[in-house]
């Protein structure tokens, strides 16, 4: 019986991992250098690079540079940009990883949408951001952008950090649950003890004859609230005005 079911299992596992995206690319442009940080040649090279790597995981790697955001902040600007431009490789408002820079405030913000939100969670984006911040600070924008595209592409190839998304963990939970239930079925097949103390308890004359609760002392301990801020940056993500949720990590350079 088990032998018959095993192929079925493997088939289910395999099917889940062959999620096919048939849509054609929605994304035509990848580098939006409004702050003119790149030379024409660098821009062209990065455009090619981003286009090539974006295809692998059907996720658009976008670079966005601006000079001032009218006081909105780079995160909000980036969110509006995603909404308005309908970014996404597989479809409008689709899978997108975006690096955004406000050169005026020297702010950098990395975000992941849809599939990239899961694979490039805030923790991973923070790792990438911390690695490329030195290049940004030095003014090596081309290197930093190239690194973002390369590193994001790499992380997209590994399953998300959360153990919940690992297929072997899911299978393990399934097997564990089945083992517990079947084990319980086998254990209880011979009948269970169904009487408790209530069946034999005689309330007549039963009860508490003496009782004392004497207050002794109170101790108070305090711990600092855990904060998820790291290295002067912020991570967490949020939701754009258009209602698209994202993972994110931002900071100064």
């Amino acid at each position, binding site marked *: 019986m088990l032998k018959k079911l095993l192929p079925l299992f493997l088939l289910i596992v395999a099917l889940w991992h062959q999620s096919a995206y048939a849509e054609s690319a929605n994304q035509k442009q990848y580098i939006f250098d409004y702050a003119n940080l790149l030379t024409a040649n660098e821009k062209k090279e990065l455009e090619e690079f981003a286009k090539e790597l974006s295809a692998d995981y059907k996720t658009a790697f976008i670079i966005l540079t601006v000079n001032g955001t009218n006081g909105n902040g780079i995160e909000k600007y980036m969110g509006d940009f995603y909404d308005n431009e309908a970014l996404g490789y597989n479809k409008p408002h689709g899978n997108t990883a975006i690096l955004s820079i406000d050169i005026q405030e020297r702010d950098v913000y990395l975000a992941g949408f849809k599939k990239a939100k899961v694979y490039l969670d805030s923790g991973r984006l923070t790792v990438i951001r911390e690695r490329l911040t030195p290049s940004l600070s030095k003014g090596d924008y081309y290197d930093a952008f190239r690194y973002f595209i390369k590193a994001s592409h790499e992380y997209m190839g590994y399953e998300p950090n959360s153990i919940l998304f690992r297929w072997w963990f899911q299978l393990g939970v399934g097997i564990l649950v089945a083992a517990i239930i079947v084990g319980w079925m086998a254990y209880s097949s011979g009948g269970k003890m169904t009487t408790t103390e209530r069946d034999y308890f005689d309330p007549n004359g039963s009860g508490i004859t003496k009782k004392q609760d004497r207050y002794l002392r109170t*101790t108070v*301990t305090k711990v600092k609230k855990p904060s998820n801020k790291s290295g002067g940056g912020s991570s967490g993500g949020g939701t754009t005005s258009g209602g698209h949720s994202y993972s994110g990590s931002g900071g100064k350079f």
Partner: protein
Amino acid sequence: MILHYTCPSCAGDMNFDADTGKLTCRSCGRKDTIENYPEEMIKATFAEDETNEYHCNNCGAVLITLAETTATNCSFCQSAVVIADRLSGSLAPSKVIPFTISEKEAVKAFKKWCGRGLLMPKDFMMSERVKTITGMYVPFWLYDINSNSKVQAVGTVVRTYTKGDYIYTETSYFDVMREINLNYTKIPADASEKMNDDLMDKLEPFPFNELKDFKTPYLAGYIAEKYNYTDKEMMPRIEKRVKEYVDTFIAGELSNYSTVSYKTKDIDIKQKNSAYVLLPVWMIYHDYNNSEYIFAMNGHTGKVVGRPPLSKGKAAAWFGGIAAGAFLIMKGIAVLIGGGYL
């Protein structure tokens, strides 16, 4: 049945004195009216030619039948060698719960129970007849218990709250003392050596409001086993059980504390009363794959206990089905959280 009136003071035998109309103790002279005499002190023994006792040479079981009934096979091992003996003078049960489920109903109920066995082999469930079914009165002691407990402990009440950037944990300590008096009535323990204790415990509950005064005609058509253990010998099992009951009560009583660490916990368990009773059990023997399976059925409620054979194929099917289902649910959860991209 011969009734003995034991003296409540000195445990000697009391006789009825026709002159005073009272029960009089021959040793210490105590007098009691029959109306005031405590019922639980009456000891009944079997009279001569009332019952037979059979010893099985094969497994050692001791069975009691009506004098008219001749046991030909041992109800436990089915062995044919049984030696009859007269049973006069030995302790008779004081109460009995008669069978309310007939043999036919018992077989039907057993078949129904088999039908619900999710892991049983199909041919075991489907087999048309049981090999042997025997109605047996199993000897039990019923205990009335009083327990006195004294508990001393330190309990804590924990409160957490947030103020500013800090999380505060406030722990208040209390010195806790409880004295608890608990009564339990009619806790059963089987006095049979042959019967598996766990199996008999699982047969509960027996409706003790259905207890009748024992009379030998109740044995007609059935076999009773003689008790192997006295109430004193079975007391440790009862103590263990009552201790668990009392522990549960204490834990419930102190449940408003977040943590409780016990300094002292003295549980004193006393036997107030015990009664020798016979409870109805159908013993069912079933053959499957050259081995014999034994089941017991509560002769009043029809509850079946006993370990049935397990079908590996069915277990594997359940295992596979549940594992696949749980796996899909986990996938579903991951998809919901992951936004549908995994």
